[in-house]
């Protein structure tokens, strides 16, 4: 029972963290490369403290990992830990389906022009 509650709490934290547009945007950035919190703060039209708060929410949800480098606080995305290879490949498949539709559309233009 206690385990189930912990798991529910984790899911709450995850959904809460992802329910905000700025946090999703921060997550996208830190998945690509590690960013300092100050570099992230510079990217948004909001205070350093507000961005730091968003980073803290993502951290509590287990979506990012933080570490210190001197006076800087660095954040990196951690989504890989909970994503399966199958879901990664299916995302890639989506990209490909889009590409093939675009090739088809481009080829269809030839016929229209004739």
């Amino acid at each position, binding site marked *: 029972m206690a385990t189930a509650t912990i798991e529910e709490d984790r899911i709450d934290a995850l959904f809460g963290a*992802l329910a905000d547009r700025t946090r999703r945007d921060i997550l996208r950035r830190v998945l690509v490369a590690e960013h300092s919190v100050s570099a992230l703060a510079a990217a948004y039209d909001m205070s350093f403290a507000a961005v730091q708060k968003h980073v803290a929410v993502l951290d509590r949800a287990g979506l990012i990992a933080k570490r210190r480098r001197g006076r800087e606080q660095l954040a990196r995305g951690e989504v890989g830990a909970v994503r*399966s290879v199958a879901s*990664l490949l299916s995302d*890639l498949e989506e990209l490909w389906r889009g590409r093939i539709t*675009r*090739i088809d559309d*481009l*080829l269809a233009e030839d016929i229209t022009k004739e």
Partner: protein
Amino acid sequence: MPVTGVTSDLDALTLTIRAEFAAPPERVWQIYADPRQLERVWGPPTHPATFVTHEFRPGGRAHYFMTSPEGERYYGWWALTAVDEPKSFAFDDGFAADDTFAPVEGMPVSRNLYTFASTDIGTQAVFESVYESVEGLRKVLEMGVVEGASSAINQIDALLA
């Protein structure tokens, strides 16, 4: 529906897409040989691609960037390893940090083989991509290529499964 088959090999980290096009291989080939046509199909509508270099020959390189809706650029390069017009070409695809297009150390590189065979309808195309690692695959997808929302939803699916 032009996609005729999708095979993913989870162990080999390989994705193979088969598609049939109503145009001969020579015409499909042009899409890859001409950077202006290629950039119309490479990036999703949300992240259009711009090819600044396109040396479509063995040993040649292609340099491109994709632009996010926020105007952020994601740089990438191809190193063409084989080009056999109009039947097939092979290339390595990787990331660059900026517009020098120098490969980023430690960033994933995928190996790709695209083949085009003539059929009654037109062309049977096979697009094969092999990734080095799960981490590499993840980075490719998070590099702004796929909308974050779908990734987030998949992640939630994984948690609830």
